[in-house]
């Protein structure tokens, strides 16, 4: 197997602080969700992270994950529009 993702190592690192650990536990779950509320909660949680404790590489990853969470809403909007179009077409064929 590929080596474990470095976030896991960061999460388990001694002295990382409870907020950082919570953040890592939460974020992957929030990213997989299209819920606006969950996304906001994730972002709120992220502000608690003490970025000073993270390495430069970890900080880059944090910012990338935050950016991905922001993108989710835009993906959801396009997908919703697509589903609506398909539903309208299906309805017109009935």
């Amino acid at each position, binding site marked *: 197997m*590929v080596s474990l*993702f*470095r976030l896991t190592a960061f999460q388990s690192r001694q002295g990382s602080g409870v907020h950082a650990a919570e953040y890592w536990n939460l974020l992957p*779950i929030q*990213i997989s969700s299209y819920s606006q509320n969950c996304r906001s909660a994730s972002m709120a949680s992220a502000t608690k992270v003490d970025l000073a404790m993270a390495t430069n*590489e970890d900080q880059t990853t944090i910012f*990338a994950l935050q950016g991905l969470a922001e*993108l989710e809403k835009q993906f959801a909007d396009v*997908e919703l529009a*697509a589903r609506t179009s398909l539903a309208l077409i299906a309805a017109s064929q009935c």
Partner: protein
Amino acid sequence: MLTFPVRRTQHNLKPLFAKRQKLVNQIPEFWPNVFLNGPEDVQQFFSPADLAILASIKSFSVDRYQVTSETEGEPRSLRFTFDFGKNDHFEDKKLVKDFEYKSSPGGPGSLVSKPVTIKWRGKKKDVTNGLLDAACELYAAEEAIKLKNADGELEVVDREALWQHEKLREKLAAFDEQPELQPSFLNWFGYRGPVGPPSHSARNANEEGVDEEEDEDDLDTGMLEVEVFPAGEEVAISLAEDLWSDAMDYFSKGVAVNS
């Protein structure tokens, strides 16, 4: 009619996927995690020897390359681009595999593709055991014959008459006789799909009056006897519509499992 909303959606998603790509490329080992936790339809084809190669994927993208606007282009044609870091098996830093959608009257159509050559670091490093190279040789031989036909009227080649066809057929048979060998996912780069004329065996069967319905599947195959990755189309679709679209979900799944 359903092509239009699909095309429009894909066109609108392109800039979002481009933004996503920039972000995920900043996350270490993002794509290896996605592939190794990806859809079962894809994972089932990974051999142990493939894992080190998959671990060296630096970037991966899927492009509906024929879509040029909301109203133009075939959204079912796909381009897969793999960027690799250094690995022990091959020299290539980038591999690009295109699948072109071909419609068929009365059918759903299919994806056809050209085999992609990989520059192995040596015969022993070739995880496909020579199958991919042989598939590429056969394709090159067919193309050479088409080029010789200056008027360009030759659309299909009688590939079964080529020695490269026999070589590939024998390699496939020899591979099947060695149960200790596992087929590699990298064979997918050799997929061609239903291109060219039906095989001799299928034609003969039809001429001899075999039940048409019973033999229907064989008549469209063309490549099936020497296809190095028969499930190539299904894997391409799963890569595009599951692994690529839901990459964040597969990545998260990997992080959760590792935690």
